[in-house]
């Protein structure tokens, strides 16, 4: 009865957020194994779409009852996912959704709200600094990043908030440091930085501090790493808020999937987690000092 196999395919821990994903996936996998002795939960990480397609295939070879997947690049994995789905396996997609995201590709979709992540950040800026000149540091050129940009633009729509520049920081601290240094050279006055990822915020803050620039009022990042939440909690002026995009969502998806597989609970459809705005008041609810992220 409990001798079921759940495959979990996630991106390799290539930056803080994905590291969080790996952490939570391993954590919940252990938990499921404990609750269902005899259950097999196999967690596999992959660095890029092609190797993730391989990983999915390799998981399938081991005989899967369910697949939980957080695709590195969703559209490129649709075929591989379909293959599994068509074999009758329960499929849950996490976070990054393919362009066609219906029950022909998956049974369950659990995600943070990418457009909302941008929108919440945009709205916060609009509300607090309605005339702000903003520089944006993007992630990597993949669809969710585009969704966030679009959300952001929607969030600031109709205000005087002006985007001075957008450049890619690849969700990487060092790249963000560089980009921010150059933004500071390029623009004598910047009010707000939106860098939509907590890892990148680390580099951004260093660059601002080095330049001793006082014009920048604050930085909005996102995801909810423990370091940034701590700053919010401590009332750091530069990081007044953070937008939640919890890597723990993979765990949620795994728990739901386990419920479907072991207890035949009918979990289907879409679960979108809020892109909650973390402020000084609610920060402690999101602070997990033991997480690697």
């Amino acid at each position: 009865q409990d001798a079921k196999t759940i495959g979990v395919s996630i991106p390799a821990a290539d930056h803080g957020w994905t590291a969080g994903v790996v952490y939570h996936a391993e954590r919940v996998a252990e938990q499921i194994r404990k609750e269902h002795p005899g259950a097999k939960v196999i967690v596999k990480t992959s660095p890029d779409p092609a190797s993730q397609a391989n990983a999915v295939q390799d998981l399938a070879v081991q005989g899967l009852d369910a697949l939980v997947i957080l695709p590195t690049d969703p559209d490129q994995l649709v075929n591989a996912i379909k293959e599994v789905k068509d074999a009758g396996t329960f499929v849950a997609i996490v976070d990054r959704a393919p362009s066609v995201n219906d029950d022909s590709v998956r049974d369950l979709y659990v995600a943070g709200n990418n457009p909302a992540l941008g929108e919440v950040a945009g709205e916060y800026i609009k509300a607090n600094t309605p005339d702000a000149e903003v520089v944006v540091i993007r992630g990597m050129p993949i669809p969710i990043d585009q969704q966030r940009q679009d959300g952001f633009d929607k969030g600031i729509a109709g205000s005087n908030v002006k985007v001075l520049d957008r450049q890619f920081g690849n969700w990487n601290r060092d790249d963000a440091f560089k980009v921010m240094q150059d933004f500071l050279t390029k623009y004598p006055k910047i009010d707000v930085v939106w860098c939509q990822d907590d890892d990148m915020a680390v580099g951004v803050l260093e660059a601002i501090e080095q330049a001793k620039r006082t014009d920048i009022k604050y930085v909005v990042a996102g995801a909810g790493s423990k370091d940034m939440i701590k700053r919010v909690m401590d009332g750091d002026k530069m990081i007044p808020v953070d937008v939640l995009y919890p890597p723990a969502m993979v765990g949620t998806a795994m728990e739901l999937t386990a419920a479907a597989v072991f207890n035949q609970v009918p979990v289907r459809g879409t679960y979108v987690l809020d892109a909650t705005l973390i402020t000084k008041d609610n920060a402690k609810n999101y602070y997990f000092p033991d997480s690697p992220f």
Partner: protein
Amino acid sequence: MTANDDNSALARPRRSFRDVDLRAVAPFAALILLLIVGALVNPNFIGINNLANVATRSAFIAIIAVGATFVISSGDLDLSVGSMVAFVASLMILFMNSGAISDPALMLAAAALLAVGVGALCGLANGLITTLGRIEPFIVTLGTMGIFRGLTTWLSQGGAITLRQPELQAMYRPVYFGSIFGIPIPIIVIFVVAAIAAFVLYRTRYGRHVVAVGSSRDVARYSGIHVNRVRTIAFVIQGLCVAIAVLLYVPRLGSTSATTGILWELQAITAVVVGGTALKGGSGRIWGSICGAFILELVGNIMLLSNFISEYLIGTIQGSIIIIAMLVQRSLVRKS
């Protein structure tokens, strides 16, 4: 980047025929070793299904590695192949999405032709800049790597480019997923490409010239060989191989983005070197490169099927296995 076997070969009194043979056989020995390791790691490993999967998916790197064998044999290097895959695939999908031709079969044929043409042109660009500009191929192809990657990002506006027409998709899908007489088509393609390449490299005048050019530019030139032409054609062959890989890649993932093919150049070069071709040029082993691509894919597969290695340590184990595989090869050759 001088090979080491160079060293050893010259230190030994004379390279006997047995040596040459063992050198060619060594990668296959490493492959067999890996198969054994795999079988021990997971019983599913040795199943026909799994092995077919692995061989099938090694098609991209294997076919690109065939082209790389030409480029490397002729003494050059191409770092742009990974981004070239992304670029060619993007153009191909965009063309198919354009709906310029309504008949799906015709459209598919035209798109394939386009891909091949674009691939050849990309290779030609690499070749001409390298030879006419007299710049290190490393730099040229690092530059074009950036160029192709950037163009892809721009074409996709940072997102993905996805094949939209369902009939086309349906018609095209079997090219990766189908099989003939039970053999997956990509595997057949690997072998056909390798056989043609081996023929060209070993049995034609051009192939001879590739090796001569890679062994010594001056000697080749003094023998009346058009060195730059030979080198440029090698880059074009590389471009064609990339295009063929794309023809298999598109039906598999049906979509591309700026992340497609990242680091494939390193994998292709590794496959070539693991297969016994020396990076300094002057010798090429087509079948070795295929074997090298299988080895790389197998290592990844074993990692995936083994359930006792921490996900964090995969890179470590993979790196170690590759080094060990090479040590095994070397010790084999040395014992002879």
